[in-house]
């Protein structure tokens, strides 16, 4: 929508962004931080703010922020551009391209028809199928980014199969709803299983330093009630927050079965993609045991699809959206990492959490979890936040009298479910964000509301449950 009103709003948003950047930059450097860290925060905060208030798209904001950070001498070019060689960033990009191969070959459509034939009587049914599928496969995938590479082609095929296209204002909401369900399901399934994301074992290692030993079983028991409650409720909540436009599709299962029959047997391309995909999934699942690199596995699969002409160079040249995703993700990833390296995250976390010392433990407990979740607005990596802040927050919690298992588990679960708070809050989000079904404003709004919902469920249901089972 364009017009004098929207142009004026955009101009105001840009002025507000610039004012925020200059204001923070010029403010006195807080005692205990370096000017370098403070100035980088000013740039980073203004970049994210500009996206939220729709002053700039994420790509524009990231490019301007990277340029500002380097040209002002705030960070070295090598540090600012380090994200372009980061394995997780590359994994997202390659998984994106592989997903395109799954859709192009027709295998994605076949899988989506199978899903629709079983769950397709309503859009809500499809959403539950996404959540349940992810929850079921999650314990075998130690990387939720890799898991997003499996889930995304299915969700994309479901959306396209239902006639939902990102460019079409009339149909895109169905795809947008399913895409956000994909993101949200990855966040919740990662909280449910210890082995569903590489972040959890890091947290468990830190928890051990506070005397709490956590294994697969204790984690599952502790997470089960709040996480399963979220799995049960979140598709409905999102359905209310972002109505998909299409609700009941009673004839869809029969139509899907008919379409499956008319598709006939697997084509050559579908067989190639199926084999490549199964090998990639096996590689991702076994990555820890076989000591293979997740990104290299994705490169192998992508290379196989190119070598067998399932994907062609023409297909790749049309993936401009992937390039845009790569650029903004790499820049924000590096910038957030630098904020951490320069001590900003540890400083803010330490100051905020230590301000709670002396408050009654129930209040301190809630405040620590809420602050920990809000701090994720500044992080582009879940593991970075766990490494930088988990120990700090647990220590303050324990000092204020919160039972150690309670604060540890609460923060560990938050480290997964807060990933949807921003589009860049977890690398597993990015592939869904890049689909184009949801605007930046919608992503931030749904992200904040979804994270808030999870926070409430984990506090209200999870707290008494944890006090009961992990004393």
């Amino acid at each position, binding site marked *: 929508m364009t017009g004098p009103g929207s142009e004026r709003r955009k101009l105001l948003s840009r002025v507000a962004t610039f004012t*925020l950047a200059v204001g*923070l930059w010029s*403010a*006195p*450097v*807080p*005692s*205990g*931080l*370096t*000017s*370098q*860290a*403070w100035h980088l*925060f000013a740039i980073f*905060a203004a970049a*994210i*703010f500009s996206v*939220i*208030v729709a002053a700039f798209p994420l790509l524009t904001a990231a490019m301007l922020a990277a340029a500002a950070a380097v040209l002002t001498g705030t960070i070295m070019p090598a540090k600012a551009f380090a994200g372009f060689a980061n*394995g997780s960033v590359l994994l997202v990009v390659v998984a994106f391209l592989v997903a395109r191969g799954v859709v192009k070959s027709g295998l994605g459509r076949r899988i989506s028809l199978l899903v629709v034939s079983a769950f397709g009587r309503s859009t809500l049914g499809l959403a539950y199928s996404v959540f349940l599928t992810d929850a079921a496969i999650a314990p075998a995938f130690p990387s939720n980014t890799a898991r997003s590479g499996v889930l995304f082609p299915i969700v994309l095929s479901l959306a396209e199969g239902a006639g939902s296209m990102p460019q079409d204002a009339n149909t895109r909401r169905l795809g947008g709803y399913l895409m956000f369900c994909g993101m949200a399901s990855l966040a919740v399934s990662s909280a449910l299983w210890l082995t569903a994301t590489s972040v959890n074992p*890091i947290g468990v*290692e*830190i928890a051990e*330093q506070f005397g709490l030993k956590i294994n697969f079983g204790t984690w599952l028991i502790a997470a089960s009630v709040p996480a399963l409650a979220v799995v049960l409720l979140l598709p409905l909540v999102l359905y209310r927050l972002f109505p998909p436009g299409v609700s009941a599709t009673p004839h869809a299962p029969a139509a899907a079965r008919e379409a499956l029959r008319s598709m006939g047997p697997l084509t050559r391309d579908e067989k190639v993609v199926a084999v490549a995909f199964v090998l990639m999934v096996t590689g991702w699942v076994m990555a820890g045991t076989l000591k293979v690199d997740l990104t290299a596995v994705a490169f192998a699969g992508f290379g196989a699809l190119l070598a067998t002409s399932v994907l062609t160079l023409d297909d790749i040249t049309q993936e401009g959206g992937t390039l845009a995703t790569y650029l903004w993700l790499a820049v924000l990833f590096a910038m957030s990492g630098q904020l*951490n*390296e*320069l*001590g*900003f*995250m*540890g*400083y*803010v*976390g*330490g*100051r*905020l959490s*230590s*301000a709670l010392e002396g408050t009654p433990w129930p209040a301190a407990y809630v405040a620590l979890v809420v602050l920990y979740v*809000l701090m994720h*607005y500044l992080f582009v990596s879940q*593991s*970075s936040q766990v*490494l*930088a*802040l988990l*120990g*700090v927050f647990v*220590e303050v919690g324990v000092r204020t009298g919160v039972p150690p298992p309670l604060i540890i588990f609460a923060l560990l679960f938050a480290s997964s479910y807060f990933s949807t708070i921003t589009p860049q809050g977890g690398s597993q989000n990015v592939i869904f964000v890049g689909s184009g079904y949801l605007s930046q*404003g919608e992503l*931030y*709004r749904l*992200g*904040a*509301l979804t994270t*808030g919902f999870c926070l409430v469920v984990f506090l209200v249901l999870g707290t008494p449950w944890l006090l009961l089972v992990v004393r």
Partner: protein
Amino acid sequence: MTAAALSWLLLPLVLATACSRPGPGPDGAPAPGETRTFEGTWSASGTRHTLHLERGHQASIFTLTGSLLLTGQRGLGVGFQGEVIGMSDSLTGGVGRCVWTDERGDKVFSELRGEPIGTGSHVVGTITGGTGRYAGVTGEYELRWQYVIESDEETISGRAIGLKGRVTAPPAPAPAR
């Protein structure tokens, strides 16, 4: 305005407030000839490159940077950005050189020695001088790595607790005759 936009308008305010609140008492560098004690924590991340030698013997070089937060009634300041570069040997221990930088850009230099870097290791530091308001300071401190975790290949993060020590400012120069 969306809830997210509102929360983002508030977040910088919260952060700025939290950051600019005066600390619990420390008021910067000690006066000439004065000795002060300090204590705190240090959260840091960085890289470690390990060379595997004979069986059970490893040597590594590492760099760590992060936020060093100090507490106490009369410390050295609210905190610093701490940066260390070091070498660690699983048989002979570790050595390092450390720079703490405050919000004015003034620095404190120290030398580290102790156990090989890792969870639970104990390290002792000798403050050898500084710049700006810390010029000429001397002192010592110790810390223990509560945990050191290797998250990705060659990427490490850690948290040091029990950081405590003392620092002495050089005496005031004698007045010129």
